[in-house]
């Protein structure tokens, strides 16, 4: 049992260590502003590409039913389009999903 616990703790150490290195290396290495227009533009577009790719199509499977997810997504896009803040958009989407579920879809 003690050996088993040690294996678990070491495994957690491996996970945490790998994850931290991935996050730390770019921040530690690129301490100066990059001057190249192409690289700068690339990095400026990264947030939108990565967040869009992570959101779609996964968002449609993030709730108990496809119908509630579609309505929740529509609510989020609309609220965001009209410039609402993060919290409003997140809770608005959740509220829409909740309502659709109560209606039985």
């Amino acid at each position: 049992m003690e050996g088993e616990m040690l294996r678990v703790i070491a495994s957690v150490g491996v996970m945490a260590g790998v994850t931290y290195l991935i996050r730390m290396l770019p921040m530690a290495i690129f301490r100066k502003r990059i001057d190249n227009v192409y690289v700068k533009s690339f990095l400026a577009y990264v947030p939108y590409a990565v967040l869009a790719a992570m959101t779609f199509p996964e968002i449609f499977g993030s709730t108990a039913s496809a119908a509630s997810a579609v309505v929740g997504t529509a609510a989020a896009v609309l609220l965001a389009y009209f410039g609402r803040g993060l919290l409003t958009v997140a809770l608005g989407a959740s509220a829409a999903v909740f309502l659709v579920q109560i209606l039985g879809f």
Partner: protein
Amino acid sequence: MKRRLNREFRQGLRDGLPICLGYLSVSFAYGMKAVLAGLPVWIVTVISLSNLTSAGQFAGTNLILSGGSYLEIGLTTLIINLRYLLMSLSMSQKVEEKMTFRQRLAVSYGVTDEIFAVSMQRPRELSAWYMAGLILTPVIGWTSGTFLGGVATSLLPDTLSSALGIALYGMFIAVIVPPAKKSKPVLFTVLLAVFFSVLFHYVPFFEVLSGGWGIIVITIVVSGIAAFLFPIQDEKKEEA
């Protein structure tokens, strides 16, 4: 000077609050599942505090439970979390240039999808104190949610946890939609990324590219194309 730091810190705490709320429900479910599967509550809580990731630590926890080797655990974590490399690189160009090396090492710990998303939305350079606040609230949410899930005997009502499942995606939408409305190149980037993501997800031929690798390939290819088509000229140079 002191007052400015204080204000930055508090602004960070405030901006981290929506993330904290979203994390609570997700980590609650994680804590519950991991403890039911047989891990002690304290280990599961330590996993959340030390990893601060969603998919990466879920996969790692499964491997621990099924007796995966260290190499397997390390490689899986690497692949799923490799996107942080790109986020951290992007963030390295937005933190204040005067940020000390130690502060950079500390801020790196908090590069998650959501913290990255919110920090990129901030219209100015990122100070160490702002980042400290922005990281602290989500860490508290993620860790305490895990702990509470682990000790909870009853489940969150299904409808509620299902409704909260969409909250974090909602935040991402709140980050990408307003700039896409204002800027054609950003709209192009978003639509192209969604197109590839849907393609990789549903077309069997691209199955290898679903999950961790797909996100990385899409981000590099789409940002590369957008940068090539719509290079952003330096504002100062444009004025000159």
